[in-house]
């Protein structure tokens, strides 16, 4: 709807370039939001995604700087593996020490960022340091669709299937729904939660490599403050913050919506100063609508199940 309104007011919004830009912008947040959704569904949260993205993105820049001829695919693999390691650190701390993820990942948010700062210092790597083929990944299109957007769609579909149709995926919902019961029931809670964090790390790693491909500079502050955007995207997309429900398709749509809002506001020439306020209103509106719908559903359930009293 937002897209339609914007497109009528500003036709340029839906030119091929406009659509391409929209999708490209959303891609990175979409991928991060998918990972975040996985973690939130298990009644945890990963606040360190921004820092992980920063570290891996800088790592990617470094890789190309140190080994200019490195195959691009290998960079993706290394980036995702690096993300997996960082995610695993979160996951291990959360599961082994049995402490709240919010605290742990707030801690690793600081630590990863610190490490990134220490490692990068003032160094930044620019697009020019990376091969053309790598940069063009984020601009090439197939049938008008940007390559990396197709990649994101593939990730969404893949993760959605895992969540909906595999036992491990369903276990995540059970864990988020009632962790104590899940443990009593014999669901391998530790392994699954760890898995969710690793997956979130891997996806953050993937997003980071794409980030390096799309944006000019990667350095010490890359990805700062992204965590709240990502959580907001997942929540706007209907992932319950207390776990147990929500889908990655929802999270992806949430991410798309939030980025669309920003682009749409710019395209509508809304005063820059109002933009952030409007984003805030929209976040609140989205969760309110979600809540009203679910309340309504609950009431219908109550009435429909009632004996005719």
């Amino acid at each position: 709807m937002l897209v339609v309104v914007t497109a009528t007011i500003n036709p340029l919004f839906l030119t091929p370039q406009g659509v391409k830009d929209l999708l490209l912008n959303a891609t990175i947040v979409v991928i991060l939001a998918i990972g975040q959704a996985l973690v939130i569904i298990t009644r945890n949260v990963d606040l360190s995604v921004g820092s992980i993205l920063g570290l891996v993105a800088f790592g990617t820049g470094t890789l190309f700087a140190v080994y200019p001829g490195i195959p691009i695919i290998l960079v993706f693999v290394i980036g995702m593996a690096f993300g997996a390691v960082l995610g695993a650190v979160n996951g291990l701390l959360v599961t082994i020490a049995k402490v709240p993820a919010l605290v742990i990942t707030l801690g690793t948010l600081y630590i990863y960022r610190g490490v990134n700062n220490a490692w990068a210092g003032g160094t930044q790597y620019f697009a020019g340091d990376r091969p053309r083929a790598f940069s063009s990944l984020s601009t090439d299109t197939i049938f008008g669709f940007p390559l990396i957007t197709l990649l994101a769609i593939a990730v969404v579909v893949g993760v959605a299937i895992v969540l909906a149709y595999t036992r491990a995926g369903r276990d995540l919902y059970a864990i988020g729904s009632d962790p104590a019961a899940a443990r009593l029931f014999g669901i391998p809670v530790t392994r699954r939660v760890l898995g969710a964090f690793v997956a979130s790390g891997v996806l953050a790693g993937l997003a980071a490599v794409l980030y390096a491909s799309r944006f000019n500079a990667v350095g010490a502050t890359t990805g700062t403050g992204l965590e709240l955007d990502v959580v907001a995207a997942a929540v706007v997309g209907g992932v319950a913050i207390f776990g147990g429900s929500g889908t990655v398709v929802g999270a992806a749509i949430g991410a798309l919506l939030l980025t669309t809002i920003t682009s749409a506001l710019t395209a509508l020439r809304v005063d820059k100063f109002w933009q952030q306020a409007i984003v805030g209103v929209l976040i609140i509106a989205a969760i309110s609508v979600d809540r009203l719908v679910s309340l309504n559903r609950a009431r219908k359930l109550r009435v429909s199940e009632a004996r005719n009293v």
Partner: protein
Amino acid sequence: MSERTIVRSGEGVPATTAGTLPVRVRSRWTRILLSRDAVMFYALIAVVVYAYTQVPYFASTQTVGFLLLDVIPILLIAMPMALVIITGEIDLSVASTVGLTSAVMGVLFQAGVPIGVVLVLCLLLGTVLGAVNGFLVTALGLPSLAVTIGTLALYRGFALVVIGDNAVANFPQELTRFSTSKLGDTGIPVVMLLVLAVALVFGVLLHFTPFGRALVALGFNKEAAAFVGIRVGRAKFWLFVSTGLVSSLAGIFWTLRYSSARSDNATGIELAVIAAVLLGGVSIFGGTGSIPGVIIGVLLIGTINYTLRLARFSDVVLSIVTGALLIASVVAPSIAEWARGRLHARRTARLELQRAAAQ
């Protein structure tokens, strides 16, 4: 259904306790001295003593002043935040409330409104902003994490709308000087008195009033709290209001201390506040936490930060230390628990052996 025998236990028979080991019920004092808050306090003292003896320039009253001035906004906001987190909610919009208060303060002052009126309006504004959060969370039943991510953007957005890219700096000298003035030559900022008052209010509220009891109960179990007549929604609403109010107070202090009203003031300090509160022993799941603990948590991070800066460590180290401390503070009890469990298991096994030998 068949007949059922209803029997009654013999009168006066002492309740048989399940076969318990000789219970080592620790005395009140041992418990206090070994509590989490106490351990944090020892850590704080250790840091101070170390810095005092080892870090050049630390041993001066200037340290006290600069250090306290730095932590005041966080310390202020941490008080209501602790209560909010104890009830199982969270408020991420505090930094934006600081920013919006600052912006409004600047604009009103520049428009010629008398400074006294400006201050009152600012506090009122904070109250309203908190009430909006409270309304969304309690009346609509929305998750506070999500709501306050929304208002975090919204309030910061308003700040931009209000003051745009301007900065207002010419606040009355008496006020800006007052905000950094010290108590005699102790080095302690005068504003600390206000902060202490706020801490006292929240500390007493949490630990010594019926309302505090209600907060703790509802933090652990909302439903059970409702069943003893605790007005869960109302209690939370007022906590959000208090968070807004105190954040605007912090906003006023911030503006005066830096004598600069800008839309981006205090950006990002919400995470610092939450980190300090959690380090102070408040459980993110609600229920557990104490005001002295939170104060110690804030001071601990503040002191370590300041010491590291004095010792010329870069901020890089600082953020790593903050993160590590936060993680250690929650992981350490788990490790201690585990160690105690091992010890206990060994003790039980030994007792079993003795019992077996005795038979």
